């Protein structure tokens, strides 16, 4: 860690603290319908769509509405991919996407995961990107926010049957929160150099021709291999470069602010067209946390005690800062295998040094390690460097942050509702220790609520660990691995961790665009999303119906440093108990091998 590394993390943390309250206030005003001008618009939209803005829904109807819109979205994205060759805005004549890949991608974007088995610039038409993928970036993010607000209403209300109107919540989050923020970020991004056009890819003559080995393919388009199984290549030369196009800035903006993370281009935010400068990178990093951090303040306001919100915020920020420092630290130490090759990995005023494999020169170590921690604290999954090439412990940071359930600010909405579930669990554990019925924010947690809490907490580890175990045990699963040894296992574990937690980042060496991975990862993504949302809405309904008990002498305070520690402890305990054995077989073994190497 250089002083500069500390400075980058410190300034970023300060900026996150600074935007939390204004963001939270605005979210509250929008989501609670306090701004008269906006309520007129949302009312009109709602009525035009055949819903009554005055009528609220109970939790079952709310959950059903969530599922319906998600299902429609999945069908829409699937259809657009399968038909894109016949549709407009396809200047590169992209073929229709295969059924298994289209299914995987549809589920991926509807669940706010944005796991990508495909490369954007080689697969998707502009229409599919903007009308399919980008729309789901908006709607899945808005759904997450709506569910979080519904859960907070459950805490804030007393003896109420309803938890809100999903149609209204979806409209509010999309039009008044995500859309203006996206527009702002899109404009800044374009100013910095992000592309936005509908042109065909442009072939330009390069300054110097490139000679290379071109893999030979047979008539069926399959690579030809020699007797040893190595691909046969022919010498070739190219004097041109093909520059991609597309409506990128508009999609980039919502990809960050909605914590979706699916890159328009294959290299995601490592691509200079998708993240050209340190300023665009800073804006992207702040956009990822903006709503997630703001929602903690919104929560405090809505339950009438902002200390409750700051307590969650503090727990999140502490875990985040520690993990960000760890990521930058291990990446800055570089790769010991290079030392004896006379490669200079030291940081100086002239170079960042460290482990630069898979990283961009303009971001260096600090901005890449920090980005990795941010994108996996939140359920974003955009990357500005390749996590697969991180050092073993540097790569363990994003893996472990996802395994904690993405409660460190988390996805928009999902971070708050998952953290609230952990807060309930923390209160429950504390209640067991002193022999009292657990209560949080004046609500008693009874058997039904704790059952739902347990489901919400256990569903992702089950999906991740079973999914990874099956992949390791089958030929189809093992076939996708790129790197040998422990790192290959990490690739598989990372994939299911990312899918089950709806993150979407990858150890991208894994060849995941196969029927096996497309189907199993889609299952993990779907249940990782909706097997959380339904029990959480059930808790919201159950809580809303309860009375609020006044604070008494025996009430455990759920604000302040003690509860911060208790909450962090609960999150770490659950995460470590679930995943330590698996992590030990991957990154931890690899680290021991790396440091023990002669």
């Amino acid at each position, binding site marked *: 860690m250089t002083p500069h590394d500390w400075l980058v993390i410190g300034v970023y943390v300060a900026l996150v603290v600074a935007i939390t309250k204004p963001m939270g206030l605005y979210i509250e005003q929008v989501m609670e319908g306090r701004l008269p001008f906006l309520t007129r618009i949302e009312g009109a939209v709602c009525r035009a769509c055949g819903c009554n803005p005055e009528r609220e829904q109970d939790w079952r109807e709310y959950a059903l509405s969530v599922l319906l*819109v998600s299902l429609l979205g999945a069908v829409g994205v699937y259809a657009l991919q399968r038909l894109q060759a016949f549709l407009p805005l396809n200047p590169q004549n992209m073929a229709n996407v295969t059924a298994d890949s289209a299914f995987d991608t549809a589920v991926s974007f509807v669940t706010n995961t944005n796991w990508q088995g495909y490369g954007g610039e*080689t697969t998707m038409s502009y229409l599919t990107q*903007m009308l399919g993928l980008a729309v789901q970036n908006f709607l899945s993010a808005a759904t997450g926010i709506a569910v979080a607000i519904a859960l907070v209403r459950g805490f804030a209300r007393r003896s109420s049957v309803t938890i809100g109107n999903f149609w209204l919540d979806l409209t509010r989050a999309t039009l008044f929160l995500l859309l203006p923020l996206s527009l702002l970020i899109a404009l800044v991004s*374009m*100013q910095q150099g992000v592309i936005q056009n509908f*042109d065909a890819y442009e072939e330009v003559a390069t*300054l110097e021709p490139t000679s290379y080995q071109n893999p030979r393919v047979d008539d069926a388009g399959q690579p030809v291999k020699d007797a040893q199984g190595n691909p046969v290549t022919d010498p070739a030369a190219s004097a041109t470069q093909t520059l991609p196009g597309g409506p990128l*800035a508009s999609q980039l903006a919502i990809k960050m602010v909605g914590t979706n993370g699916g890159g328009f281009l294959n290299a995601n935010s490592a691509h200079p067209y998708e993240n050209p400068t340190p300023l665009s990178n800073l804006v992207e990093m702040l956009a990822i946390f903006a709503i997630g951090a703001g929602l903690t303040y919104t929560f405090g306001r809505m339950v009438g005690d902002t200390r409750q919100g700051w307590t969650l915020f503090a727990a999140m920020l502490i875990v985040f800062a520690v993990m960000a420092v760890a990521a930058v630290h291990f990446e800055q130490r570089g790769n010991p295998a290079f030392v004896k090759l006379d490669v200079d990995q030291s940081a100086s005023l002239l170079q960042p040094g460290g482990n630069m494999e898979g990283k*961009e020169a303009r971001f260096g170590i600090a901005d890449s390690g920090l980005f990795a921690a941010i994108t996996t604290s939140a359920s974003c999954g955009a990357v500005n460097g390749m996590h697969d090439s991180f050092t073993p412990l540097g790569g363990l940071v994003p893996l472990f942050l996802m395994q904690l359930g993405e409660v460190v600010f988390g996805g928009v909405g999902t971070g708050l509702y998952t953290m609230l579930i952990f807060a309930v669990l923390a209160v429950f554990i504390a209640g067991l220790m002193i022999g009292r019925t657990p209560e949080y924010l004046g609500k008693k947690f009874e058997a039904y609520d704790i059952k739902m809490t347990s489901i919400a907490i256990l569903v992702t580890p089950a999906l991740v660990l079973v999914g990874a175990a099956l992949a390791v045990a089958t030929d189809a699963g093992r076939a996708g691995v790129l790197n040998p040894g422990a790192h290959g296992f990490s690739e598989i574990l990372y994939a299911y961790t990312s899918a089950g937690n709806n993150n979407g980042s990858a150890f991208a060496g894994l060849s995941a665009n196969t029927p096996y991975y497309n189907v199993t990862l889609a299952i993990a993504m779907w249940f990782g999303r909706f097997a959380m949302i339904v029990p959480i809405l059930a808790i919201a309904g159950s809580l809303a119906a309860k009375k609020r008990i006044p604070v008494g002498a025996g009430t455990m305070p759920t604000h302040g440093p003690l509860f911060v520690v208790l909450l962090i402890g609960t999150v770490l305990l659950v995460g470590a108990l679930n995943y330590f054995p698996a992590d030990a077989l991957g990154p931890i073994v690899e680290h021991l*091998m790396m440091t023990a190497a002669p």
Partner: protein
Amino acid sequence: MLKLIRPAVSLFVVLSVITGLAYPLLVTAIGRAAFADAAAGSLVMRDGKPIGSRLIGQNFTSPGYFWGRPSATSPLPNNAAASSGSNLGPLNPALLAAVKQRIEVLRAADPGNAAAIPVELVTASGSGLDPHISPAAAAYQLARVAKARGFDTERVETLVRAHTAHRLFGVFGEPRVNVLELNLALDAAH
């Protein structure tokens, strides 16, 4: 259930039109009006023809040009139509082999240079299209470029400095040299 279908379908259509058509078209219109150069890909022109993009790295191998980051795109390096990193793990023998091979090529191009090689010159970038190198990586290649072109090293150094960008507010990002622009300036200096 049935009474939910109408709002679900209508709202899905309305929000799709707004976020999936109106919004990207609005951004495109603003981009064309206010940031035309960037929105079109930041093309660099020479003699009235595009010679690449300022943001997209190109492959350089002759000693008279500065070389950029190694690129792991396939089938050829710096393939802007299919961005990609190597995704090789830190212990992968293939990574070590690639690094050794890059070191050999760098040493062969500049036999007199015994300095340690900056790590960026032997490791593949994340996108495979990194347009920049660090000032250290430029300094390492300075003597070779100057010699191949018959320039004073001071003259090349001045050009490098003119194409070096600094950190944002002294904090974010890294000092960096744009390789394509620097090489174009070298050509223009003849």
